């Protein structure tokens, strides 16, 4: 299995605060990696580094053949291969759902309006929101907005999808509908890295779990690792969540 994402000994600080202290892990094609850990453990920062939203101070990051750590990185090229979904959805409020999705394909891939619209309807159907194309984000529930955000990323046909605590702002029911979309994606063979607090989801869907603690990868393994943690920290973390 070829690695789509490979972090090796990544270091990152905010001021005197060391957030990533030698982080290494790999994610192969078609794998679903769940990055878990307490708030402040560096998991979101690690995810943002993968997409060059943060610059790193040491180590290397390879993503879909791009050397992300390289100063000469063409970020726009990287972004063609990587989609990211945020906790706060970040839909564009002045554009309809359809326009939100069409924007990047028309701007970045120079698709015609009609082709982009067809594409928008296709990805909206995949997240179960075909009938919401003409709505504005503020007319949708949080769960629906997050599914639109996923659709917007999908429209760029990324090779890798990143999810940054995408359900943390949602109630259990809305969380369920977003997770279902993500599970469908995973089953469709999408390579995914998700930072999440949804332990049940990680256990069920993830092919790999990365437990981060104090800026380090503390433990890593398959989903079943959550049932028999080898470090006391993970045992603590999992125990407190159940």
């Amino acid at each position, binding site marked *: 299995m070829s690695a789509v994402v490979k972090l090796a000994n990544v270091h990152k600080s905010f001021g005197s605060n060391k957030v990533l202290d030698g982080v290494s892990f790999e994610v192969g094609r078609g794998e679903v990696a769940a990055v878990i850990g307490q708030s402040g453990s560096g998991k979101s920062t690690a995810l943002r580094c993968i*997409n060059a939203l943060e610059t790193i101070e040491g180590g290397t990051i390879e993503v879909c053949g791009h050397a992300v750590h390289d100063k000469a990185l063409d970020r726009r090229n990287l972004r063609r291969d990587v989609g990211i979904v945020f906790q706060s959805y*970040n839909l564009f409020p002045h*554009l309809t759902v359809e326009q939100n999705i069409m924007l*990047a394909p028309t701007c970045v891939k120079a698709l015609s309006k009609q082709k982009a619209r067809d594409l928008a309807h296709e990805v909206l159907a995949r997240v179960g929101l075909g009938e919401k194309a003409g709505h504005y984000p*503020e*007319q949708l529930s949080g769960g629906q907005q997050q599914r639109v955000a996923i659709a917007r990323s999908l429209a760029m046909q990324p090779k890798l999808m990143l999810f940054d605590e995408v359900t943390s702002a949602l109630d259990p029911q809305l969380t369920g509908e977003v997770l279902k979309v993500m599970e469908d994606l995973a089953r469709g063979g999408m390579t995914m890295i998700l930072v999440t607090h949804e332990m049940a989801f990680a256990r069920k869907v993830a092919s790999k779990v990365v437990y981060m603690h104090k800026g380090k990868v503390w433990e890593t393994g398959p989903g079943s690792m959550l049932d028999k943690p080898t470090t006391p920290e993970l045992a603590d973390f999992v125990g407190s969540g159940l």
Partner: protein
Amino acid sequence: MTYQFDFAALLPYWHEFLQGALLTLQLSAIATVLGFILGTLCAIGRADGPRWVRFLVATYVEVIRNTPLLVQVFIVYFGIATLGFHVGADMAAVIALVVNVGAYTSEIVRAGLESVHKSQLEAADCLGLSRTQIYWHVVLRPAIERVYPALTSQYVLLMLASSITSQISAEELTAVANRIQSDTFRSFETYIVVGVIYLALSFIVRIGLWLFGLVVFVRRRKLGTAL
């Protein structure tokens, strides 16, 4: 005190009042459009430009905001002539108004730009949009939508302030009034009429900008959110 109002004395001049009002509207419309473009570019330059651009814009804005419009009008009018260019009073008036309103616009638009959350830029950036595309599609419309009421007030003020250009004999409404009152000696009546015309013009400008807002800010129209 018994003052005999005689508005009838002004009747023969209705055509000139109208001409003046039209020129006032014309000056204001041109200054509004150009001032908006100038101000928006300055706001972007100040928010996102290299150091020297930020410095240049900041200087421009502070100089304009801290000097009287009348002085600016004179400087432009006599300055252009001194540089050896021949432009009419109307043209000089437009240039001065554009320079003036551009500075105020840039401050208003800057507030709008700052109100667009960083996460919006990040999302657009992650979708692969270029900086220009991000400004055009993601930042400017919501930014301007948010400060549109302030911009509207500014452009109504601009229309009213254009009366100052009568001092360089741009033939706008106030200049016309000055001439008519010295012809008729009916100063009080003349300025009452002119005041009423300015009221009407303000109303027209407000309605015009409101309608423009409805056309441009589609979401507001569709969702019925007031501007």
